[in-house]
């Protein structure tokens, strides 16, 4: 059966691989052979915010997702204003991510799939980000920088796979920023990275020396975090910057951002040079950062291209991207049988057969 | 006239570079004395030809010196003394003068280099003046500044010592003398390029 023969296809997507629970409804119109149109019918999110100085633990995050799943699903359905009979499939995040939160959301997705008698589609979280980014920005063949709390990857499409050209060899960049936010005990609300960004805007007087660790198209952040933590301890003891002024949290946030973002822009540029592309798409939670977008934009412009980024509705984890990527796969005939609808903490971007692209 | 106007890639069009090679020089002490006393009549780089292996070797030193001058980063009094320092793989200036500069009694083969900034139309007069002055003061036999003549003058054991080319594994690999010399030249250019790094 050619599903794209249906003029309208609708999917419900559920995401909960980290501390955001997101549920959204997407509509695809037109044949997928022609450029089909994607319309966001609803995109609802609820974030588990842990107290300053702490990270989100799997157990608490899973509990949050279970408590809010029905409420958020009801909101998503009512905002989308679609009836159950109009929905073609239920999409959920198969991985990668934290086990317990993923499983909680998967249980909800399976129950809906069984109750509504709709096929289930397991989606790779990273592919969700990439496809949503492409759909929103119209970037056709970009090098993708995927930066979040769990992932740092430079990706480009080739021969039915999103191939990983570069990645963090230890912790993800978002994890580095989040953990540093804990070190200096700044708020996790709305997100630690957001608060680092705001603080960094007050910095700029000095650039404190942090390790710069790029290896080919890969990079590493744990050494930088260690050094930044040391500098924070130095600051708490009244330490001074090279210019003789006391070190401030703003100096630290500024220096940390400037250093890690330079690394990200550099590995992205390397990938662009390597594959011969001048488009960059930034996805993932860290992709909201305006300084990162600005640096990336300047780099891309220098190469005669441009940067594509989405706002917080789409770059922060959400349900709509899962619905969208799931529906793309579903349109090619892909389904996940209930008995195989497990979750997996480790699920590499390049494991997915991207059948919907040429 | 045995004075050659050297054409070097990327040298500013305002610069003129002249050089001459002499053999059997008998007044090296006098020549060095003029440099030491900063005699304005003697703004030259006087190089000991036995420490130079080829034209490329010489050109590289001259280009490096001119580049340093255009960057306003001279480490020695002027562009001519900078040519001497440029030949060295280390930052020790007096050692560079001793090894590549004119040395009383020891220097028999001499390369004189003159770098001037002049307009194109004055070029001919300038060259003539330079040669008149040189041939008047250098007591020796002018010969063509060719790779062949330079080769004859080269004191290899000395050059190998100066550029640390003894016991370098790569040089044993080459049977062919030309290839071996090219390898040595590359190593010399690299030694000069990474000077002090």
């Amino acid at each position, binding site marked *: 059966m050619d599903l794209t023969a249906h003029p309208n296809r609708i999917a419900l997507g559920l995401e909960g691989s*980290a501390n955001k629970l997101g549920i959204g409804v997407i509509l695809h119109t037109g044949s997928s052979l022609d450029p089909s149109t994607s319309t966001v019918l609803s995109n609802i999110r609820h974030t588990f915010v842990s107290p300053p100085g702490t990270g989100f633990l799997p157990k608490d995050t899973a509990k949050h997702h279970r408590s809010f799943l029905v409420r958020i699903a009801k909101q998503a359905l009512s905002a989308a204003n679609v009836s159950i009979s109009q929905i073609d499939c239920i999409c959920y995040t198969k*991985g*990668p991510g934290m086990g317990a939160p993923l499983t909680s959301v998967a249980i909800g997705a399976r129950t809906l799939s069984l109750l509504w008698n709709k096929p289930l589609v397991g989606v790779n979280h*990273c592919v969700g980000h990439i496809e949503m980014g492409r759909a929103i920005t119209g970037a056709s063949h970009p090098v993708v920088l995927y930066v979040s709390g*769990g*992932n740092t990857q430079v990706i480009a499409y*080739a*021969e039915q796979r999103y*191939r990983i*050209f*570069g*990645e*963090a*060899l230890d912790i993800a960049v978002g994890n580095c920023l989040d953990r540093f936010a804990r070190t200096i005990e700044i708020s996790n609300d709305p997100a630690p990275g957001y608060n680092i960004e705001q603080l960094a805007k007050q910095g700029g007087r000095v*650039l404190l020396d942090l390790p*710069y660790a*790029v*290896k*080919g*198209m*890969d990079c590493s952040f744990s050494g930088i975090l260690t050094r930044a933590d040391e500098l924070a301890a130095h600051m708490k003891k009244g330490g001074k910057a090279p210019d003789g002024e006391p070190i401030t949290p703003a100096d630290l946030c500024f220096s940390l951002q400037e*250093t890690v973002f*330079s690394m990200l*822009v*550099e590995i992205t*540029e*390397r990938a*662009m*040079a390597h594959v011969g592309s001048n488009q960059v798409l930034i996805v993932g939670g860290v992709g909201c950062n305006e300084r990162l977008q600005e*640096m*990336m934009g*300047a*780099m891309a412009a*220098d190469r*005669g*291209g441009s940067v594509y980024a989405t706002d917080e509705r789409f770059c922060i984890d959400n349900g709509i991207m899962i619905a969208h990527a799931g529906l793309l796969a579903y349109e090619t005939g892909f389904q996940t049988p209930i008995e195989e609808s497990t979750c997996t*903490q*480790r699920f590499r*971007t390049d494991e997915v057969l991207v059948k919907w692209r040429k | 006239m045995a004075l050659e106007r050297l054409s*070097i*890639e*990327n*040298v500013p*069009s305002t610069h003129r570079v002249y050089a001459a090679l002499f053999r059997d020089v008998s007044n090296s002490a006098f020549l060095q004395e003029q440099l030491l006393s900063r005699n304005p009549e003697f703004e030259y780089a006087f190089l000991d030809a036995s420490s130079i292996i080829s*034209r*490329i070797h010489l*050109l590289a030193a001259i280009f*490096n010196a001119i*580049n340093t001058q255009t*960057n306003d980063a001279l480490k020695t009094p002027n562009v001519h003394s900078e040519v001497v320092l440029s030949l060295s793989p280390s930052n020790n200036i007096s050692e560079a003068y001793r090894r590549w500069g004119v040395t009383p009694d020891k220097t028999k083969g001499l390369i004189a280099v003159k770098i001037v900034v002049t307009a194109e139309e004055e070029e001919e007069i300038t060259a003539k003046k330079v040669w008149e002055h040189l041939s008047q003061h250098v007591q020796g036999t002018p010969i063509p500044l060719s790779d062949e003549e330079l080769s004859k003058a080269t004191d290899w054991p000395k050059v190998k010592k100066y550029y640390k080319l003894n016991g*370098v594994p790569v040089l044993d*690999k080459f049977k062919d003398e030309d290839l071996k010399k090219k390898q040595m030249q*590359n*190593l010399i*250019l*690299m*030694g000069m*390029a*990474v000077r002090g*790094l």
Partner: protein
Amino acid sequence: MTTNPSQTSTKRPPSPSILNTSPKKSKPSSPQTMTADTPPTASSFPLPKILTNPSSTPPLLITQGAESRLYKSTYLTPSTPCALKYRPPKPWRHATLDSRLRKARTTAEAKVLEKCHRQGVPVPAVYGMDITQGWMAIEWIDGIPVRVAINSHLNNPQQNDESGIKNLLKQIGEAIGNLHKIGIIHGDLTTSNMMLNPENQVILIDFGLAAQSQSDEDRAVDLYVLERAFMSTHPRAEKEFGLVLEAYAQTFKKGKSVLTKLEDVRMRGRKKSMIG
């Protein structure tokens, strides 16, 4: 008369991107190409002034790499072809960090190339450089990037040149083994950063991220970087990559323990799909 290199270069036809690996689309790239044949784009930073002075071969932009531009020109004499590698300032990067990185990388690159030469590992020679301006003139290597060579093998299966590709992969392993043996880490091993010269010898190029190290960990990461670049660049030759590692361990006696370490590095890499 000098010409503006960026103007000259924009007229060059774009070369095939690595993603077009299908036989129909990919064209053999020019034998003049020294490294990744990315279409050069207009440059907002001209070359340092000294390199814009008269030359018999004004610098022609060959590639705009990530952190450097590569030009073809001549050095000192019209008969000495060279590659000019220029690291332009990156305006998007903090000026302090930018100047620190550019200087450090140019210095490290030159030192590594010198060491390779002295130890007999074939790499391009450094003819001259200026670390404050961020350029170096290096020996021009004729030939084609190994990436192009591999792809042309892959795209001509009827030629039955399986031995050709195997021999090439073996040579790659040997070249890296020899490099690691003398305590150097390339830092950016890809099949675009290797040339196959007219004598069919594999020459490693672009030591812009190279470092000196004797540690198995660093060596393993070096191989891992290549492995990943190889898999994404030549997915159809994925299974053959083992030949590179085999030849590596044969050339470099301590290579066995590096390969063991490589397993760890791979595992760590896989973990990257986990949170935290």
